[in-house]
């Protein structure tokens, strides 16, 4: 019996001894766990009365679809252009200050887009924004400034805080690209410009595609920024249905459409992932020669500096300024520390423990999935690994909706406990853990595990004495990523938290929504700093901080 089950799991490929049934069961259960919210949403959408469908189809659906797709396309294009050009300038040219800029360009990942949006909104708001006010002061009459509200504002803000995905992936690709590839193109009669378009960019294409599709998924899921800037997309419409009108049928229908959209993008992304090859830096690897910018040097520097300013320095500077202001004013300070039921310390602590627990759980759950798919490749194990990445296609609002409905119905004792929030983080961010664990295992030669077996270790001893110690850095990277994204998560936390359970993200959102920017600033600043820690660990792994491999 055991043998047949095991053989079923290795049906399509060879070389490996039969799968441990325990591993297969653990991975299967994980897949089942992540499947529940997805299946449930479709179940509910299908069960919605036809009238709800009718209403939505007539009135809202097409407009929402248009709005959402427009934003996705605009931000993805913006992030691609910004990300690739920033990566090229810092990796391939003699840009002044490139070593510092290289790290600074990645750091906006630590700033949730809605916090960036809050800052830019406070600065640029048509009426009462700090910049229009200052200009009016100087010139003496109101001046028209670009408004951050609406489509263009949302596209601008979201581009600023999502381009680092593309930037990091293309930067890594630029670094690992063989110099001889471009040299060969040059020796075959191409100019540097032609070489870039005909050789370099096509070689980067899989990495760029992956980055672009991740950005697209992120935008589909984005709630805070679009709500703040009053641009209606699926996510914000679902949130309104859920939080305001309690029309769960309508929310389910909208969610199902959004999830189908996201699954299409995820499917494309997984296909691109499959085409990406592991680019190993061989011993004869040498870096490409830097392009001399010449008279363009300082204009290029200004360009990069303005991106860094808008996405990192200005938000940070404003948050620091506001925080100082808050600390200087005893009344605001009092409000900061007495807010909520238990005060400042409690929501810092809530943010940390929920994100940390989610990171640990997601990493632990990803382990059997990754072990099965990497060590016992078969159609089924690959399917499980792919399936566990469905969280990418489940926006926070959708996960919140399905958990609200499910837990109400099946596990009422969990309802209104912080554990539901943790559950949402795990479901949403499991893909990052699965990918990190898989890539860590892929880099571990199976012969190390086989060596341990022939030297007298059982499979379980091998796992604990050889496999786990060696893939630990990869697992930590995955956990750091889950921690980082959970910390920034807003919509699911807003919808699922028990009354009085505040996290940093929730507090910042609530205060900013009431217009108390100065009061919100210390929490926002701490949130950004807490997110910057795991991020800098990840960037160090990417070697973004060290120039040793490049100079």
């Amino acid at each position: 019996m055991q043998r047949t089950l095991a053989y079923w799991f290795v049906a399509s490929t060879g070389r490996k001894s039969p799968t441990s049934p325990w591993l297969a069961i653990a991975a299967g259960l994980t897949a089942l766990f992540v499947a529940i919210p997805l299946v449930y949403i479709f179940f509910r959408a299908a069960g919605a009365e036809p009238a709800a469908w009718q209403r939505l189809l007539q009135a809202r659906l097409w407009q929402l679809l248009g709005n959402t797709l427009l934003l996705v396309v605009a931000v993805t294009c913006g992030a691609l252009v910004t990300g690739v050009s920033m990566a090229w300038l810092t990796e391939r040219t003699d840009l002044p200050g490139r070593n510092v800029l290289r790290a600074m360009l990645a750091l906006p990942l630590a700033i949730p887009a809605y916090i960036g949006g809050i800052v830019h909104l406070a600065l640029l708001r048509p009426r009462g924004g700090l910049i229009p006010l200052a200009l009016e002061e100087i010139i003496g009459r109101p001046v028209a400034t670009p408004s951050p509200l609406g489509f263009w504002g949302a596209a601008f803000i979201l581009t600023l805080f999502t381009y680092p995905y593309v930037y990091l992936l293309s930067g890594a690709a630029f670094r690992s690209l063989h110099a001889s590839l471009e040299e060969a193109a040059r020796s075959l009669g191409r100019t540097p410009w032609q070489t870039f378009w005909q050789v370099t960019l096509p070689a980067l294409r899989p990495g760029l595609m992956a980055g672009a599709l991740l950005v697209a998924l992120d935008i589909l899921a984005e709630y805070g920024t679009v709500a703040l800037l009053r641009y209606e997309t699926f996510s914000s419409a679902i949130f309104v249905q859920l939080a305001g009108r309690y029309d769960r049928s309508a929310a389910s229908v909208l969610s199902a459409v959004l999830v189908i959209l996201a699954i299409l993008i995820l499917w494309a992304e997984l296909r691109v992932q499959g085409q990406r090859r592991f680019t190993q830096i061989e011993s004869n690897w040498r870096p490409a020669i830097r392009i001399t910018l010449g008279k363009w040097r300082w204009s290029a520097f200004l360009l990069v500096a303005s991106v860094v300013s808008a996405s990192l320095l200005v938000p940070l500077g404003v948050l620091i300024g506001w925080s100082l202001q808050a600390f200087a004013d005893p009344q605001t300070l009092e409000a900061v520390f007495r807010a909520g039921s238990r005060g400042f310390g409690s929501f810092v602590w809530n943010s940390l423990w929920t994100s940390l627990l989610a990171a640990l759980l997601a990493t632990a759950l990803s382990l059997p999935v990754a072990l099965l798919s990497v060590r016992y490749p078969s159609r089924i194990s690959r399917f499980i690994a792919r399936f566990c990445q469905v969280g990418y296609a489940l926006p926070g609002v959708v996960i919140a909706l399905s958990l609200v409905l499910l837990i109400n119905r099946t596990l009422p004792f969990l309802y209104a406990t912080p554990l539901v929030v943790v559950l949402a983080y795990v479901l949403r961010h499991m893909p990052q853990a699965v990918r990190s664990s898989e890539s860590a295992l892929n880099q571990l030669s199976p012969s190390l595990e086989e060596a341990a077996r022939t030297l007298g270790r059982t499979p379980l001893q091998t796992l604990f004495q050889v496999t786990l110690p060696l893939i630990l850095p990869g697992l930590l990277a995955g956990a750091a990523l889950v921690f980082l994204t959970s910390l920034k998560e807003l919509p699911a936390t807003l919808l699922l938290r028990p009354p009085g359970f505040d996290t940093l993200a929730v507090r910042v959102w609530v205060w900013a929504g009431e217009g108390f920017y100065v009061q919100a600033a210390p929490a926002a600043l701490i949130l950004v700093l807490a997110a910057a820690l795991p991020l800098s660990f990840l960037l160090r792994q990417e070697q973004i901080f060290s120039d040793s491999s490049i100079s």
Partner: protein
Amino acid sequence: MNTLDIQHLSKRFANARFAAVNDISLALKNGEILALVGPSGCGKTTTLRLVAGLERPDAGEIHLNGRVVASDTVFVPPEQRGVGLVFQDHALFPHLTVSENIAFGLRGRKSAEIRTTVNEMLELVGLTGLASRYPHALSGGERQRVALARALAPRPVLVLMDEPFSSLDADLRGAVREQVRSILKAMQATVIFVTHDQEEALYMGDRLALINQGRVEQIGAPEEIFHTPATRFVAEFMGASDFLRGEAIPEGIRTEVGWLPQPAFVSQPVQVEIALRADDVDFELSETGNAVIVERFFRGAFNVYRLRLDSGQVLHAFKEHTQILPVGARVRAYISAGHPLAVFQNGQVVSNGADYYKKGAEPAPFL
């Protein structure tokens, strides 16, 4: 009692068109080194992994020191087989030092005993000074020796080596090969050694087993395999042979380059192929000859000439390094072996002079 007995072992991977191992039987005596040699993908590594317990056989039995470790009803997992395995990529644990790597298989013994054994092994492989280094700080040859020491330390009944020298540079390989063979012999280890390099197999093996498409083509001493190949494949694989067509009758063989008076065990005239290595063929300049020089390869100590016979058949011939003859010159090629040659009909040997090599008998008269 044999240290290892393999009987009718077969293994076929799911979705594979051919069996990786197809009814292989082998036996190893204590202290013997058997080299499994064959082209890549022939099943030699799978055989090794089956013996180590890293794969489960479909059929057949494996006995280690008389104990059944794999059969239709028994499967002993690798950790309980007491078999040492040296991996192609060495598979040293990067998180452990050299001495921790060597001690990895000694778990459960007294710490004093472990220390003594590790020191003995370090001394044996000549790495005493490097005990506390990590694998990444070792050279390729040093890693190779640590891998060997780690496999030998628990005193395994059998040592399996999977192309252990393939990751080393060519100039290092020769030196490491000598060291490893003398270490194995000093330990009196019983070894199966897998390689696709015929020269390495000839050097390392007390006996050779030629594997092709999952089957054993021939087993024997290196000299036996080299001189009296049992099949055309063996002749082709062991020492680049040309195959000269001829017609065999009981008294000898008629060929394009003359009459070969080597008796063939045939009852009626049949088409055969004679395996000829470059040292079996010679030629002289002759306007009325039967071949032309197509190419000359200067090998330093000697020249290799490629000749094309009038039929289009290609033969290779050695000449001294001073004998430089022009390409395009017409020559008369002839067989100058001075010993019996392997003759094949449909890939199977019909005459190979096995008697000659075994008994040291007088050679039959040759050209």
